[in-house]
């Protein structure tokens, strides 16, 4: 290591250490500010009471009048809307792409109490869309990060941190403490569970979703309107549920939907306007189109809110949402195990083969746009969906490699298959075995394993 890189490492460490000190100080300041504000509020109330002069009978302190003046100036919102908001409480489940903007606006607008539920930590690849979090919070709890951001915007709003996964076991207790629920989660079982919990407790549910370049928004279980199960009594097949981590999402799309969720929550909490119940807003960001569609009413046959529904606190507690939707509540990456041990090698074993110069062909079966992000040298890209049609290319490559290394006519080049995480590569090897490439082997764990175990500098995504 040359002296320059030693110096660079030292400087980086110093920056990190200073950043962490700065964060710590900022947290102390914001906590002290909150305390001071509370003291001021108390003494304001005390002094105005002692003067026998509240100044105004609407219950808003001078600070509040100033802070929320633009709301108060709105004839359709005004003092009453703001007063309702200040008395209300909103629970945001999920502090991710949807929850981030929703929380920022809910904190700013003067909701009295905001609860945040999430069990996740902030990661670098969240920051492209989860705009409430900053680099300084990478590795820290999302709830803590979001709560600090909310407090720094509005120290007069009470922020409650629920650093836990939302499960049937804690759902009823948490939700019962709030007036309005915002579903900002990212998976099907959570959506059914949150819906059912809101039906049991009679809470309006502001539901948003985003994926790719599309978003959806509606309010469930509000004023006799339909609930999530009225619309979707049967869960979709698991392979119909795409995840942002696999399919991608343009950051601003959940941003738009999350803002609209804040808007609907504010309408419900302030009793102003016409919440989006019995209707759904569909956003197609590519064409710049919003579509506002009319939904069915509450279904009398609905298993959650219908006339003969059997949903109670107890049945809710006993219901297995993961089994119902065939999807885990904390969707980790899928880990298939389709092949026998001798049809697979680890990334480190593959690395050794490369070093030893073993004659081989490496087929990368990811989609072309994944391959463009990053790939291993000398790999050829044949996406899984086109594999069957492009077998001749594999045969040709194998022959070429064998010729290049002038192997005996009896032996041939080895064939390895890789993908992002090691699932599609197994599917591909299975297919290759069926189609006569019996020596094909998959690289266990794919490029993620390569980055983890062989080359830490290899980019992951």
């Amino acid at each position, binding site marked *: 290591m040359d002296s320059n890189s030693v110096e660079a490492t030292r400087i980086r460490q110093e920056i990190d250490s200073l950043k962490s000190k700065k964060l710590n100080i900022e947290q102390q300041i914001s906590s002290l500010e909150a305390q001071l504000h509370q003291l001021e509020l108390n003494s304001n109330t005390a002094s105005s009471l002692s003067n026998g002069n509240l100044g105004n009978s609407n219950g808003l302190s001078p600070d509040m009048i100033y802070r929320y003046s633009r709301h108060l100036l709105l004839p359709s919102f005004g003092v009453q809307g703001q007063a309702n908001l200040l008395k209300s409480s909103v629970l945001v489940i999920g502090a991710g792409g*949807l929850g981030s903007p929703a929380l920022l606006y809910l904190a700013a607008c003067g909701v009295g109490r905001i609860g945040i539920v999430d069990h996740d930590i902030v990661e670098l690849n969240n920051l492209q869309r989860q705009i409430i979090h900053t680099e300084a919070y990478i590795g820290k709890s999302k709830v803590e990060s979001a709560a600090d951001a909310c407090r720094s915007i509005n120290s007069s709003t009470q922020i409650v941190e629920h650093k836990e996964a939302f499960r049937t076991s804690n759902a009823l207790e948490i939700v019962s403490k709030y007036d309005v629920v915002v579903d900002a989660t990212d998976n099907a079982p959570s959506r059914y569970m949150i819906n059912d919990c809101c039906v049991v407790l009679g809470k309006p549910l502001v539901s948003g979703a*985003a*994926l790719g370049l599309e978003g*959806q928004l509606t309010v469930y279980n509000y004023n006799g309107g339909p609930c999530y199960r009225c619309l979707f009594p*049967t869960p979709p097949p698991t392979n119909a549920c795409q995840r942002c981590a696999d399919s991608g999402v343009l950051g601003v799309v959940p941003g738009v939907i999350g803002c609209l969720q804040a808007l609907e929550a504010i309408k419900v909490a302030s009793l102003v306007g016409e919440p989006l119940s019995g209707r759904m807003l*569909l956003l197609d960001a590519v064409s710049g189109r919003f579509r506002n*569609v*009319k939904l069915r009413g509450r279904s009398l046959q609905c298993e959650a809110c219908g006339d003969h529904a059997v949903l109670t606190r107890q049945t809710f507690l006993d219901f297995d949402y993961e089994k119902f939707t065939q999807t885990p509540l904390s969707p980790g990456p899928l880990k298939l195990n389709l092949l026998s041990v001798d049809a697979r090698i680890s990334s480190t074993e593959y690395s050794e083969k490369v070093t030893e110069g073993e004659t081989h062909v490496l087929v990368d079966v990811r989609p072309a746009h994944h391959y463009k992000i990053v790939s291993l040298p000398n790999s050829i890209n044949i996406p899984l969906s086109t594999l069957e049609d492009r077998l001749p290319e594999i045969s040709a490559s194998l022959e070429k490699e064998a010729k290049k290394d002038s192997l005996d006519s009896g032996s041939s080049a080895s064939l390895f298959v890789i993908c992002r995480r090691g699932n599609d590569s197994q599917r591909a090897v299975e297919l290759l075995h069926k189609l006569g490439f019996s020596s094909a082997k998959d690289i266990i764990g794919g490029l993620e394993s390569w980055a983890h175990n062989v080359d830490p500098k290899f980019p992951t995504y």
Partner: protein
Amino acid sequence: MQLTIEFGGGLELLCDSVKIHNINVDPQDGEKQGSIDIISSFFNQLTLKNLLSWVRTNVIKERPEMFMKGDSVRPGVLVLVNDADWELSGQLDTVLEEKDNVVFISTLHGG
């Protein structure tokens, strides 16, 4: 009969990623089964049930099981006729008219 059909929420991936299709369907084209369809074909009408089987044959390019289950759409797909849930117009029995707009949209879960 001229209709516009649209796919969203990922269903467009089943038809070469094309979201909007302007189609021309002969009401006689639909698969005819059951009494309602006999009546509708007698009156030369096109129901959503007919349209679904036409779309499955003529528009969907891959994995039809991601679009339909039995003779209806698969769970998790909303069908909108002129921007209203098909539950409001009679679901499979909805009678379509010239220039109608039918949207098939998969519910999203991401966030």
